[in-house]
């Protein structure tokens, strides 16, 4: 029992120590989001703005990193956000060729298309949705237990489960 406890503590310490290592990216850090003081990037061609969390200079160009502070898996919405931020950064002249989406315990790389238009096409539907929402149109709900539970508007939403 004591041995199990010791092993457990050592495992936790190891995890703690390991998790503070850097991302293991083979590249040099070229840009960091400093929070509210950092202005977003603007892509004038597609009217998209955003900022990744980090950007690294890698062999093939620039890697943009999108970090989610949750434990658990990466969702499609995280990937869409990362691609959108990468497109915004391209508008500022960063040749973003890859994105890394990571949570506290998972990470996934995605290669980006060379052409900005092709990248935009992959998120175009969602961009249209945002513009429709901004114009005041009613938007379709996608209720589900795990989504509604963590939604900021859970209490105000008639569709929340």
């Amino acid at each position, binding site marked *: 029992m004591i041995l199990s406890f010791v092993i457990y503590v050592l495992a936790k310490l190891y995890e703690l*120590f390991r998790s503070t290592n850097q991302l293991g990216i083979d590249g040099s850090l070229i840009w960091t989001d400093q929070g509210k003081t950092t202005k977003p990037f603007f892509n004038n061609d597609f*009217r998209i703005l955003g900022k990744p969390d980090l950007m690294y200079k890698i062999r093939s160009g620039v890697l943009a990193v999108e970090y989610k502070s949750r434990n658990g898996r990466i969702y499609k919405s995280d990937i869409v956000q990362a691609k959108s931020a990468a497109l*915004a950064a391209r508008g500022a002249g960063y040749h973003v060729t890859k994105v890394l989406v990571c949570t506290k315990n998972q990470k996934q790389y995605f290669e980006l298309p060379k052409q900005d238009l092709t990248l935009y096409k992959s998120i175009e*539907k969602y961009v249209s949705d945002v513009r429709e929402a901004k114009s005041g149109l009613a*938007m379709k709900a996608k209720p589900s237990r795990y989504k509604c539970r963590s939604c900021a508007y859970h209490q105000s939403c008639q569709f929340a489960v």
Partner: protein
Amino acid sequence: MLIKMSKNNEPWVSASDIGRAEYCSHYLEHKYKGSKVSPAAQRARKKGDSSHEAFNQQAEDKRCFIASHIYGPDDRRTILLRRYRDQTLRKYFAGRVFIAVYYKLSPTLVTISRKLPVLDELLMKVVNRLLRILDKEHHNV
């Protein structure tokens, strides 16, 4: 020649909103209508911001959370503490464990100290004491 995809009168959209549209576009309807954000969500946002700050600082390895909070990230005293971390603490296993624990706890401590001036004062006393010791050692070398 680049084909202009968007007309000049189309509104700008943010990357985070585009991600949200995939998650649930009804969320955006609430956002733009000005629906009230739940207190739990507000707390989660603050926690998320703190976590992001820690993550980004980790990448820069400019982490010295508490000292940055007290003196500023580029203050001479913060730089001295950073040097102590890199040149002394990192050499030893116990030092590296201490650094790992510090990085885990310090974002939370800073968040709390922003609301509790008492904790702020206590942290300042502890850090100032450490700085006096380091300054002394630095001059004795």
